[in-house]
């Protein structure tokens, strides 16, 4: 069986954590998992390397799914993270289409759905997130969540069929889907609990601007309303039911109401998984067990608090720390969070933290011209920098947040 190798050497339990492993299994073969593998090799690690993935696609990038892949501007291959030759140069066993179903922490053993048993000196957990669904949505055609390549391609097909789209959720994902679908000429309604698009993430000023932008582009907005559930007939969705009893008719529905760390397979492992896999400041969950990416919650030593980030940059930056620590270094993970979102012609860059109630000052550019940099302040400190079509200037202010978190 490919990738399954004997476990030689002393029993795993007696292996001290400061020994460089000669065998690493990475569960989750996407942004974070792949980045750990590459960083290990780059650092000269020559031992065994196995990447286990639930999906059968080669590792691909997720941010384009709601943007270029959904709109069709990119063929799916364009979102692949690496070419075939780059993957083979890694000299790793890729076991794809075979999800992990159990982890034995003490023995560092991973059991897969097909019955493979993988043992290693070190295991890296990189399984990302699972979207939250409405009860009963799985039985209804036309209802989508968006996390995987297959999700994106399936949604695109439904959008090309025409008909009305209702997007539930006014967060980043819902807003991006609404924007991309409008760009495809689809009739879009965006419904959400919050009073403005992305206001929970970025505050009222930017939330208000984004809300106006969606309205100008012809998205029907139903904000500040609760969704009760979905209606359907004949196995296909017919609309979204609001708590008020009103029905928003739809041929296609996207449910973007949040995601949960994909820790289902870790139940019973003994790891703490209340909000992601709980790690120390070194991204270590247990001796020889590390977590990376959207899944990992860790203690940020400079901020002195627990964080779990769901963004693309975090996956690679954290992967570099995990690889270093696997190889015997002792490095805390101290990132300054960063994410971006593209909606219509607005390119937003967000560095740092955007706590609710923060004071927001525009320091460059002009709100009227849809081109500005804003600093977010809380308790007299700069916590975040946001650029709206001013990416470079925003980046140049980033140092002020770094100063504030003591970087």
């Amino acid at each position, binding site marked *: 069986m490919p990738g399954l190798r004997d476990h030689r050497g002393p029993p795993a339990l007696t292996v001290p954590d400061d020994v460089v492993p000669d065998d690493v299994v990475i569960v989750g073969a996407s942004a974070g998992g792949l980045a750990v593998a590459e960083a290990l090799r780059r650092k000269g690690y020559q031992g065994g390397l196995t990447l286990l993935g639930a999906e059968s696609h080669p590792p691909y*990038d997720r941010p384009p799914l709601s943007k270029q892949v959904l709109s069709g501007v990119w063929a799916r291959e364009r979102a692949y993270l*690496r070419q075939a030759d780059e993957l083979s140069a890694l000299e790793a066993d890729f076991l794809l289409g075979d999800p992990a179903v159990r982890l034995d922490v003490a023995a560092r053993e991973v059991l897969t759905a097909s019955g493979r048993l993988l043992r290693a000196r070190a295991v890296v957990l990189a399984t990302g997130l699972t979207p939250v669904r409405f009860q009963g949505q799985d039985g209804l055609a036309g209802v989508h969540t968006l996390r995987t390549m297959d999700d994106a391609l399936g949604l695109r097909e439904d959008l090309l069929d025409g008909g009305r789209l209702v997007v539930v959720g006014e967060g980043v994902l819902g807003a991006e889907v609404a924007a991309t679908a409008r760009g495809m000429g689809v009739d879009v309604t965006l419904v959400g609990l919050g009073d403005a698009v992305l206001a929970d993430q970025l505050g009222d000023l930017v939330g208000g601007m984004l809300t106006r932008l969606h309205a100008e582009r012809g998205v029907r907005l139903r904000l500040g309303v609760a969704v009760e559930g979905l209606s359907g007939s004949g196995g296909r969705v017919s609309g979204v039911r609001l708590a008020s009893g009103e029905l928003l008719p739809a041929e296609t529905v996207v449910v973007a109401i949040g995601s949960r760390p994909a820790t289902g397979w870790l139940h019973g492992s003994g790891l703490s998984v209340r909000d992601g896999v709980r790690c120390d400041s070194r991204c270590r969950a247990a001796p020889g067990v590390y977590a990376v990416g959207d899944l990992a919650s860790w203690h940020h030593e400079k901020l002195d608090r627990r964080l779990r980030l769901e963004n693309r940059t975090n996956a690679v930056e954290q992967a570099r720390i995990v690889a270093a620590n696997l190889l015997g270094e002792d490095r805390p993970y101290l990132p300054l969070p960063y994410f971006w979102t593209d909606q219509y012609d607005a390119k937003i860059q967000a560095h740092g933290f955007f706590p609710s109630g923060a004071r927001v000052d525009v320091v460059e550019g002009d709100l009227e011209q849809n081109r500005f940099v804003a600093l977010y302040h809380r308790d007299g400190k700069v916590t975040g920098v946001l650029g709206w079509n*001013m990416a470079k200037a925003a*980046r140049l202010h980033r140092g002020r947040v770094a100063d504030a978190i003591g970087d």
Partner: protein
Amino acid sequence: MNIAVDQDKCCGAGQCALLAPEVFDQGEDDGIVILLNPSPAERFRAAVREAADVCPASAITVDLRP
């Protein structure tokens, strides 16, 4: 060392310009990467390598051969 960037993939994160400002710059508004020097001196090697690593869009490729 030879560098190539894929402006179409770039998301304007600016990690590259942060790490190796002698080699990478960004467009003012969209933040899209601008390659200042496709074959920089060896002393930039580590910084360029790191930029390619952390680029969230995998938009930078580095050929380390001189």
